[in-house]
């Protein structure tokens, strides 16, 4: 009897063969009682996930792999390649899912034509000398209704013929071969067959599916000549089927073991509770500049990769804070399409009147440098329930809209991306735009008045199923909002993101702020901001741009009349007065009550 010596939960096991995970498919796997959804993204990363949607526990193996994301069949929640973070919840089309909504992932390494994973594997997947030295060739895997231990035990007596003996006699009997066991582990057996001067070595890995089920995954050390492969595969299938019949016959005589009960991860306490808002501008991540290049005249592009681990999930419209070597903090949109999860790609325009942010990125930051960045934040979420989406990009305003366009394109949703730029040379990320085909319309070299006329034309026709997203320089954005309003668009169909707030901030007022939840009342004197005063009092509020453009430091107003000075909220929001950007806005009334 083979003794199981190592804890199987700390070992690497094969969970799929490479041919089980073609593109656009979700393999249904199981290891040690736990069901897995295994899927290959178009960038060849193989995801090994717990086979249940966080939302209602539905199997993700019946979901759709669109090459970049896995979509649950029930309510359409979408999860990103690599990180398994949720990127979109159709029932909440206007909201960005919290970054903490993330499926459980397991390790994943491809080796010898197999996908290796494990519950809690230690070290690297096993290396097998004969396979390292050879040219591994995968046999058909066979499911067995018996324990892995029993299968391994029987595999030691397994017989087959050397590949070279099969070309002439595919039906040859394996009985004539001389077999030797060249190695054996708890979940593998290495066998060599010798006959008529020929020899072949095969490694049989046994995947413990459950206590009473396993899969035998055979790999020949040497790939047979193409003309012989069919005969070799047939021969092994016949011999392995015989072996499986013997194993199952013995297993049927033994008492059936109790199925394994996988431990489903509970939602961690810190996610189950109302999260504590981080104080100040956090730079939780360290990334390395893998690539820096000029994507257009005066526009530098950066690819940032994680130093360890996986980057947090982002959604189209999300931005990060980049903490620059010179101490400045700047916000840049993530331009990646869905599934491009191994890096963040940014586009930075050199601003002639830069206060040091874009100059630093253009001139000081180089490939290989390490930068501190915040986790992605999405204050410019993209709805996916519109019949038609119009994206208006002015210059470098293309960055968030590029991410949106790629998501819409992947989901086959109708959109138009209008790029306004000085010239083709000034159009950033043309390579990505080219891939989006006819949905992209370039408007090059238009003077301001013609730009406005063009925008007027573009927003003229609309209905309640059309949404508009605008990002660009202030004047263009103002024009787009004005033209859309004139054409009868309602505010909640027009979404925009400013680069910066050019409003001259009037901070002369003095007023009182009462915090309903914290039972604290503070006075905001002229010259200071609500955000600053609250921080001094130890009330943590997240923030990012701190100039009223990005929407991160928003607070809910319960009483009082805000004095809005931001460019994040739209006119209807300003009129409603139930939200306030605490970094720049103030109070017209003597007192504000905030839901903090």
């Amino acid at each position, binding site marked *: 009897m083979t003794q199981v010596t190592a804890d199987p939960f700390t070992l690497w096991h094969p969970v799929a063969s490479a041919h089980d995970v073609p593109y656009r498919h979700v393999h249904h796997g199981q290891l040690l009682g736990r069901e897995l959804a295994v899927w290959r993204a178009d960038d060849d990363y193989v995801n090994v996930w717990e086979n249940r949607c966080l939302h209602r526990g539905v199997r993700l193996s019946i979901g759709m*792999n669109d*090459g970049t994301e896995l979509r649950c069949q029930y309510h359409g929640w979408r999860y990103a390649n690599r990180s398994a973070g949720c990127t979109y919840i159709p029932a909440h089309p206007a909201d960005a899912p919290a970054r903490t909504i993330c499926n459980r992932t397991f390790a994943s390494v491809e080796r010898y034509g197999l996908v290796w994973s494990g519950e809690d594997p230690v070290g690297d997947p096993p290396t097998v000398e004969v396979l390292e030295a050879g040219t591994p060739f995968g046999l058909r895997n066979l499911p067995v209704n018996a324990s892995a231990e029993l299968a391994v035990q029987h595999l030691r007596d397994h017989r087959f013929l050397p590949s070279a003996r099969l070309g002439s006699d595919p039906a040859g009997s394996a009985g004539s071969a001389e077999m030797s066991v060249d190695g054996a582990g708890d979940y593998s057996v290495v066998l060599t067959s010798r006959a008529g001067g020929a020899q072949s070595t095969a490694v049989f890995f046994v995947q413990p599916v459950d206590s009473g*089920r396993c*899969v035998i995954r055979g790999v020949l050390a040497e790939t047979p000549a193409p003309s012989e492969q069919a005969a070799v595969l047939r021969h092994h299938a016949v011999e392995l089927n015989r072996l499986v019949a013997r194993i199952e016959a013995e297993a049927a005589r033994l008492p059936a073991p109790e199925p394994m009960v996988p431990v489903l991860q509970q939602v961690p306490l810190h996610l189950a509770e109302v999260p504590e808002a981080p104080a100040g501008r956090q730079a939780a991540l360290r990334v390395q500049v893998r690539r820096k290049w000029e994507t257009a005249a005066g526009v530098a592009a950066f690819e940032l990769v994680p130093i360890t681990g996986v980057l947090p999930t982002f959604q189209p419209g999300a931005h990060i804070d980049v903490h620059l070597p010179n101490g400045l903090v700047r916000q840049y949109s993530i331009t990646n399409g869905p599934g491009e999860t191994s890096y963040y790609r940014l586009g930075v325009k050199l601003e002639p009147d830069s206060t040091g942010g874009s100059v630093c990125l253009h001139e000081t930051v180089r490939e290989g440098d390490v930068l501190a960045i915040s986790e992605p934040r999405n204050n410019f979420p993209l709805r996916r329930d519109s019949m038609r989406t119009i994206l208006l990009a002015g210059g470098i305003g293309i960055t968030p809209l590029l991410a949106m366009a790629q998501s819409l394109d992947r989901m086959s949703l109708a959109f138009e991306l209008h790029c306004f730029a000085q010239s083709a040379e000034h159009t950033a990320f043309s390579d990505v735009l080219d891939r989006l085909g006819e949905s992209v319309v370039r408007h090059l070299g238009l003077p301001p008045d013609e730009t406005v006329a063009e925008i007027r034309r573009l927003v003229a026709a609309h209905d309640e199923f059309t949404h508009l997203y605008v990002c660009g320089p202030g004047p263009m954005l103002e024009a787009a909002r004005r033209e859309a309003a004139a054409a009868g668009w309602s505010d909640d169909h027009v979404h925009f993101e400013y680069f910066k707030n050019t409003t001259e901030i009037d901070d002369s007022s003095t007023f009182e702020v009462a915090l309903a939840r914290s039972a604290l009342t503070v006075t905001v004197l002229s010259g200071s901001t609500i955000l600053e005063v609250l921080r001094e009092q130890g009330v943590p509020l997240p923030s990012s741009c701190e100039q009223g453009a990005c929407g991160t430091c928003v607070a809910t107003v319960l009483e009082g009349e805000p004095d809005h000075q931001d460019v994040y909220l739209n006119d209807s929001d300003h009129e409603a007065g139930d939200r306030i950007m605490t970094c720049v806005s103030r109070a017209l009334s003597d007192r504000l009550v905030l839901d903090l």
Partner: protein
Amino acid sequence: MIKLYDYVLSVNCYKQRLMMSILDVAYETVPVDFFPGWEHKGEEFKKINPLGHIPVIDDDGYILWDAHAILVYLAARYDPSGRWYPTGDPGLLGETASWMLFAEGTTNTASAARLCVNLGYDFDLEACQAGAHRLFRVLDEHLWFREREGREWVCSGAHPTIADIALFPDVVLSEEGGISRLDYPALRRWTDRVKRIPGFEGMPGIFPASPGL
């Protein structure tokens, strides 16, 4: 126009809807209260099909029953390319007939198990499930070798046949009968390919596949 005596949850009726959708044949359905009304066992319905089962088609007065026979008729009559029922290729036609008979087996095991679980039929559920697993094992190995040959379908041709249509619903709804397809990865990949046939339509319990590459 073809009239299909239909029950929306019946795999055998779905086979006809799927075939007609793929062949772009116009038809209308006559809903039969299969469950819980057992209308197909009533005297009125037996005037149409004395065997008292569905589906039945009425193509301008031409009446035909038995799911797999109707598939033969629909493909032979409405597929001018002759690929779905390859009468022009004896070898392929023989394979098609062989796998159609195999599909009788999956209907009598996998789909019978589903009738036990969903509609309370008094079959031997365990025997149905064990029988389905035996057939699925054979089909999975067969499809795995097809993939090695660079082929995608049950028969050896480059184009799907009515055998794929006859097998698909029994396979893809097996989990409703308590038959997991976890052990049959090649079978699962083939269901994705069937779902990507132009004109494919689903039924309750059958989800679409993502677009292929």
